[in-house]
Structure formats: structure tokens, C-alpha cells
């Protein structure tokens, strides 16, 4: 799983990420997030069941959320293999009860009952 894939949904508004969502592809993923946020006001990021994530990807998601907040847009996560993704989030210590200071509308991606 050395590469990753981005698929845009037919109706727009969602990008599906699969493959290696890790440091190897971090820069490319950043670009994809920038592009997607430019296009969509309400972006849904779907993490495919076969996706592998690492800390760099979690940081990118966090950064995307902050960018969306700044632009007045929204970003939500849709996880197809919750167990794997949640393990990665928990192992990185990202799970929390309250979002960061910039999360003024309670949409933090790492709140206890999400993603």
C-alpha cells in the first residue's frame, strides 16, 4: 500500500481517500485537501476501508478543519473501517472531550463520540 487514491463523488461534496494516507503522500494529500476545500463549502472526507493512516495524516485533517473554520466552510469525516481509524486516533492521543480554542462551533474531528 505505497500509493493513495482520491476519488471525487458524483454529486461532489465528498472525496474518498484510500490507500496509504501516510507521510509518503503527505504533501500530495495536502494539495488535495486545499483543492477540495476551494471547491466545496461542505466537504465530506470519506476514509476508505483499505486506507492506512499515520500521524501526518491526522495532522492534515486537523489542519483542514482549521482551514475550513477560517473560510467559514465545514468538513466532516466518514469512516468506512472505524476500528482501524479509531485505533490510529487513540494511539496518537487525539481523542478529546472538547475541541481546540479555534473550534468555535463544536465540529472538532476528534471529539469522543466522533468520527
Amino acid at each position: 500500500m505505497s500509493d493513495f487514491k482520491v476519488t471525487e463523488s458524483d454529486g461532489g461534496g465528498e472525496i474518498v481517500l484510500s490507500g496509504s494516507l501516510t507521510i509518503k503522500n503527505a504533501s500530495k494529500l495536502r494539495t488535495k485537501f486545499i483543492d477540495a476545500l476551494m471547491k466545496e463549502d461542505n466537504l465530506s472526507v470519506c476514509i476508505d476501508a483499505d486506507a492506512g493512516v499515520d500521524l501526518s495524516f491526522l495532522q492534515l485533517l486537523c489542519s483542514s478543519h482549521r482551514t475550513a473554520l477560517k473560510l467559514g466552510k465545514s468538513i466532516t469525516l466518514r469512516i468506512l473501517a472505524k476500528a482501524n481509524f479509531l485505533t490510529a486516533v487513540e494511539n496518537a492521543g487525539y481523542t478529546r472531550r472538547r475541541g481546540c480554542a479555534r473550534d468555535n462551533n463544536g465540529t472538532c474531528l476528534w471529539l469522543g463520540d466522533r468520527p
Partner: protein
Amino acid sequence: MNEDYEIIIEIFKEEACELLSEAENSLLELEKAPGNKEAISAIFRAFHSIKGGGGMFGFNNITSFTHEIETVYEDIRNGKIIPDKELIDISLASCDVIREMIKAPHAEPDENARDILASLRKYLSQEKVVTKTPAESPKKAVTTEQESARMVTYRIRFRPFPGIFATGTNPVLLLNELRNLGECCMIAHTDEIPELDEIDAETCYTAWDVILTTSRGIDAIKDVFIFVESESELAIEIIDDSENPAENSDYKKLGEILIEKRDITQEDLESVLGERRLIGEVLIDKGLVEPACVQSALNEQEHVRQIRENRIRADVISNIKVPSDKLDKLVNLVGELVTVQARLSQTAAYREDTELSSIAEEVERLAAELRDNTMNIRLLPIGTTFSKFKRLVRDLSKELGKEVEMTTDGADTELDKTVIERLSDPLLHLIRNCIDHGIELPEVRESSGKQRKGTINLFARHSGPNVLIQVSDDGEGLDKDAILAKASERGSITAGQELSDDEIYSLIFSAGFSTTSNATKISGRGVGLDVVKRAVDFLRGSITIESRRGAGTTITLVLPLTLAIIEGLLVTIGEEYFVLPLSSVEECVELIQKEVSETRGRHILNVRGKAVPYIRLREQFSISGIPPAIEQIVIVKHGGDQVGLVVDNVIGGHQTVIKNLGWIYRSAEGISGATILGDGSVALILDIPKLLMCALNEETVSLNFKYNI
């Protein structure tokens, strides 16, 4: 001296004896492996605790004596003295001296105590210094041992250097390593993560606060970060230590933690103290602190509080001591409750009141739960009894010039404390017999192709409502011919009588039976195994023996888990109720008058072609009245034989809370106790072995075996 003080002294004495037993076990371990650091520390701790306790109560003899031996073990612990066999002997003898001192704390030390002290001091003056490799250095060993017992909670703040990803290091893997060290909670600080237009996706922006409770020491934590420490920010602080435990589970306030971690200043805190809201919320709302910092501090509070609570609870659990008579009272009360509950159930059924029946069922469930829990409180692991015999095996085998090792299995098997208390003597006799008669001298064993060292194994396991306890040896086994010859000489069996192996082996439990002509001071007088048989009978248990000439003997004791409750079979004779222990019951058959007349008054029944003798309990207990036309025979097993007990009716299974009959009825033979039934009437519990023996003595029946077991 007031009563409370006396109770405290009794507790000290009891605990000191337990510590001595532990020290003895560790001494035996140390004898086997002189470098066993755990054993050395355990011995040191035991003597140290006894000394401390003795000092508290002004028992100066105990304090000064244990001080000497404690000093020796301190030197052993520090590697200044190597423990040898002589020192182990002196230490074991010291345990005996201390035990005597505990019994009479104010008595002057006798000559033996003074001699042992002199030997100990000689050791101290010699101080045999040892050289060891650095890896085995005693200092390190002690540190490791201490560390293993010391649980420390650390606050770790880790901010990896930004380029850590480029070095191929995944910081999450480091966190996972921390998780492997102990109980851990962590939160990532993500506040440094910039927006997409500023972020360098290959840079690490995350930092972590970790709270870790571990016994592995700070070095183990530093080892996790060894390759990144120089470039990263790493702060490790101790926030809780089991060696300096807090008196309660309270921990620092949120504000204190945040200040300690430099997440806020004292001024920040003071500025929000007046608010009538949670400090954390106010600090966040005013932008004085990141929410992750507050959550981290809350995590820390919760983690330490939990650790402290667990520690306090563990201390309480490990130290709780309840006088056994209080437990006995509790069992009695539960017994009363079970009886009342049975009455309630019976009344509810009689009145056909559904609401009352439902309440009765609920009470029945609760009473059963309470009964089981109460019985569980009385259960103790048999290991403490097993370990007492290690010293006995060592001393006896030394005295007899034999080499014997004792092994144990199932030491954590639990059974009622009364059973355990009464088991000590029988096991003692069985082990003495194993060493004296079973295990051969080392030369003899070698000449027969065995290892010089014999083995005695004590084994325990649960088996349904019973506990099996086995004492096995790999000695010479029982000599059937010698047993038969002796039994014949004593008139226990008739010449030419054919007996099964079980029957032959059972003969050795007869009073005064011994095949040896030379009684030693250890065994051979024919008393020991008789004691075993009596004790096991008292415990409503049974004994079986398996033996193979030249290979060894296994004696199995089957004992009930508890003496307080039995599963019984409720029967009636006339208006009277009786309970037979279900463990002895094999089957129930009908006794028809025609069969009685066919046997011409001989009390023998044909059960599937086998002649089974029977006893009429109506006659045995002189109960008046006319028996029903069809009586019931409860066939019980005893000592490998079947015997029938004739009763009027069999009512069915009945779980019975046993009540003692009291001293007035102590001489009533064949009755082991009584129980109260649901309607308030009393049922007597039959003691099958005694009942059969009683019947035999009165010659009311002619059983087809001539010996009593």
C-alpha cells in the same frame, strides 16, 4: 491492659507467626538457590516487620533478637555475606526462637536463644565478601527488586523535534512503547498545527502529555526516547509514588496542576478564581489555556485519584482481619435466615398467594446469594497449610539421613477454614509416614535405579462439591503381604479371607496398626494413620490409597468444601425427619414386605444380584409405630461397601445448614448435627460411618466385612 490492646497484641502475634512461616519458606528457597534475591528480600522484610511490631508493643527481647538476624540479612542483601547451609540452619533455628518469644514475649531468652545469637554475631564479624560480575551486582539487584515493588506515576511531556518524520521515527510508536510500561493515559496537543496554506505536511506539530504509572523506573521511560531525546523536549516528573503514599485519594486541584505544568500563571489562576463556574471552563473561555491542557490536567487528576484509590483499597483488602468467631456467628445467622426463608417459601406455597410467592422467591434468591458469599469468606487457600510442611520435610529427612524434596500443586485451591484447620494434623501424619516408611535411604534408592532424592507431592484440586487432596511419594510403596500378615495377627481379618487391594490398604488406618517392629520417634506406633482416619471421618470425607510396590504410594483425601452446609437427602421415619449426606447416597430402592419374609428375617436385600445388608433405622433409633407396607431403602456407600438404611419415606434433596447439637447430645452416636426445616421442625443429620459402626457393635446386622475403617 484493656481489651482492645489485648486484641491488638493478639493480632501482632498472629501476624508475626505468619511472617515467620513466610520467612521459613523463603529460607528453604534460599537454601536451594543461595542467590535468590527475592527470597533474601522476603526474609529481610519478614524479620524487619517482626522487629517493628515487637518494638511497638515493648517486646524488647523480640526486637533485639530480630535486629541481629535482620542485620545479617541486610548484609546478605548487600552482598557482604553469602548465605550457606549453616546460616540457613541458624536462621531456621532463629525462627523457632522468635516463635517461642512471641508466645511469651516477656520471658528471659533461654540458653538456646543466646547460642543462636552468638552464632549470628560470628557471621556478622566474618562478613564474607563476595565478588560478583557487574551484571549480578547486589546493588543493582536490590534496586530492581525495589523497583518491582514500587509503583510510581510520572507526568511526561514530550514534544518531538519538527523533523522527526524525516528520520523515519514514528512518534506514535514511542507512545505505544510507553503504554507497554504500565497504566497510561495521554493527550495530544495539536494547537501548533497550522492551517493548510502554512502547514509543512512532513513536519511534526504534535506534542503529548502522558501520565504513566509503572514499576519499571525512570530509566525505562528514558530508554523509550533514547534516540530522539537530544533533539526533542522531554520532561519527566514524579507525581505519585507508592513508597510515599498519600493518606487519601485526593490529588492536586486543577489550577495547581496547570501552574505546575506552566500552562497558566498564578496571575491567570487568580484572575478566574472569583467566577462561579468550573475553573477549567473559565480559563478556556478567556483564552488563557488550550482545552487540551485542561483535559490533560483533568486526566492527570483522575488517573492519580484512581491509582491512589486502588492502592488504598488493596491495602485495606490485604490487611483486613476478622476474628474467626465473628465469621462463625455470621454463618450461623445466615443459617437462621435460610431456615426462615424456607418457612416463608413453604407458607407462600401453602396459601397459594402469588404476590407472597414472588416475594418468597426473591428472598430465596438473596438468601442463596448471601449464603454463598458468606461461605466464600470462610474459604482459604490450602497453600499456607502446604507450605508449613516444607520445614517438616527438611528437618525430618535430615534427621533420618534421607534426601527428600517436597513439591506442591494446586496450593491456591480454597476450602473452608475449619476444614483447613482440621486438615493440618492428618497431613502431618501422612507426610511423616511418607518420609519414615515410604521414601528409601539414598543408597537404597540408587541401588534400585531411582534418584537419590525422593519426592513427596502435595496436590489439591476442586472436584464438584469436594476437594481432593493427595499426598504422593515415590518411595517403596505398601507391602500388601506384610499388611495382611499383621492384620491376621491382630485378628482384624480371618485366615484365608480374600480382600481387594482397597480393602487391604484400608487396614493400615485401624487404630494401633503398624507393620514395623521398630517404632521410631517419628512414626511406627500405629497412631498416626488412625488419627488421619478419624479426622477425615469427622470432616465427612473419605480416603483412598493407591500403591505400587517399588514405585510409591498416593493417598487421596476427598473432603467437603465446607462443614457448614451439606447437600442432603431428606427422609422420614414415622413423624421424624432425618437428613443423609447426599455424598454417601448411591440409590434408593423399595423394600416390600414379601422380600423381607423371603430372607427369613436376615437383613439382606438382593440389589441386581448383589446382596446388600441393611439397617432398620426405625429400630436403630427406637421409633415407635408401624412402618408402611412399602418402605424405602437408601443405599449408602461406605469404605467400598454398600449398606442399606431403611426409612419410611424419601422426601428428596435438601440443602442443609448444619447446626451443632450442643454438648448434652454429644454422646448421641450416629448423629452429626441437626437442621431446622421450613415448617420449624428439626431434622437430625446422620453420621453414616458412626451409624454403621454403632450398628455393627450392637450386632443388629451382620455386615459382610469384619474390619472397621
